[in-house]
């Protein structure tokens, strides 16, 4: 049972980590579709 809970914890850690990495990687729809004449968050 302990191994199972460790694995579930690992899922949470991997997911949060993946989210942070992907945010930094610049693959959001916003970043991929911005152009010189299209600016968001400004």
């Amino acid at each position, binding site marked *: *049972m302990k*191994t*199972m809970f*460790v*694995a*579930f914890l*690992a*899922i949470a850690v*991997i*997911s*949060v980590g*993946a*989210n942070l990495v*992907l945010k930094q990687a610049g*693959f959001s*729809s916003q970043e*991929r*579709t*911005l*152009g*010189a*004449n*299209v600016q968001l968050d400004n």
Partner: protein
Amino acid sequence: MLRAMIALILTLSFLSTASAQSADAPDRSATGGAQTVEDIMLRQRGEVVENSFRSSATGDPDSAAGISNQLGTLGGASDPELWRAVRFGSADTKASNNGPAAAVLIQDGGMSWLKFRAGPLATYGGGLLMGMIALLAAFFMYRGRIKIDGEKTGRKITRFKAIERFGHWLLSGSFILLGLTGLISLFGRKFLIPTFGHETFSFLAVGSKWVHNNVSWAFMLALAMIFVMWVAENIPHRSDINWLRKGGGIFSKGHPPAKKFNAGQKLIFWSVIVLGVSISVSGLSLLFPFELNMFAATFAKINAMGIGSVFGFGELREVLAPHEEMQYAQLWHAVVSFVLMAIILAHIYIGSIGMEGAYDAMGSGEVEEQWAREHHSIWVEEMMPEKSIASSQAASAQAAPVTAAPVTAAPKKAAPKKAAPKKAAPPAK
């Protein structure tokens, strides 16, 4: 090759649509090439109208009237012709935003995808899961819990090490989360919004998307882990044929001999690997839209191999709009996921309430020796060679082979032990 198979099965699902396009082109001379009453009637009957007569009717700039003449400013294309070009993706569209899909103003295949997703995909996918649950419930009522036939020894054998169980739970935990959030995304509009309202579903949908996108990495990591750890023991063996022929002993008394993984478990393993990889690849395609396009290239390979003519669905389209790549990936992702979910439901059943002693293999990693002897007799013999020798000596009196004969039927009582198992544990409670 895998991608080719993926695309083949997917395209077969559209076989009826594709085959309907092979009819001879009707005579449209009476309307000057425009659609006829026959075309309208076909569409009203829900049949497919071959659209090339429209997609190619996008004007002729070369024969445009002079700019100072009447209609000269149209540049050789009327408004309907211009909009046809927009619809069929041949217009020279410029957009301020970037990205492969930015210049696609009308995506003609979108409605087909939407209809398939809301119709057959949801209906048959949901039906498959409900059918599997009903089947398992009926089987449980018929067979009950599969008990350990012989007397429990109280001794335990280590079946899976901690790292193996970690990989299993990483995969299973992530798969259940992905399955649930995927079902929320697919069925939310139909079932959750009417029940909980838009506000609640909005929160649920945003959360589901976050979980689905990010938990997927744990799934892919775990998939690689279990493949590396278990592939060698899941290579087919001749004992698997006997196991399958006897249906794993599920419907009868006695247990066919099996190695560490029986044929049923091997089928589960390879289903998880093959379908899991397919789901992962299509999922990556969806995670990075327009970056990892699979289907146009696959369709081109299928056309090159002539598979279309063999199965009678003709040539597949080798040029797809960016959205279409995503739509095919989404449909494929969902179809394969439904199949894997149905398989995993059966796996969860047999590993929990369906069989006494099975859960311990992934719970503590230690299984009752008698359980192991009944369900994985060859593996137990391999695990305990000293026991094998004792068995073979006894068997040699009956001119049996030198190697230990596997247990072919569950003993009613545990045989007295002449050699201790590798790991002994306190008697079972």
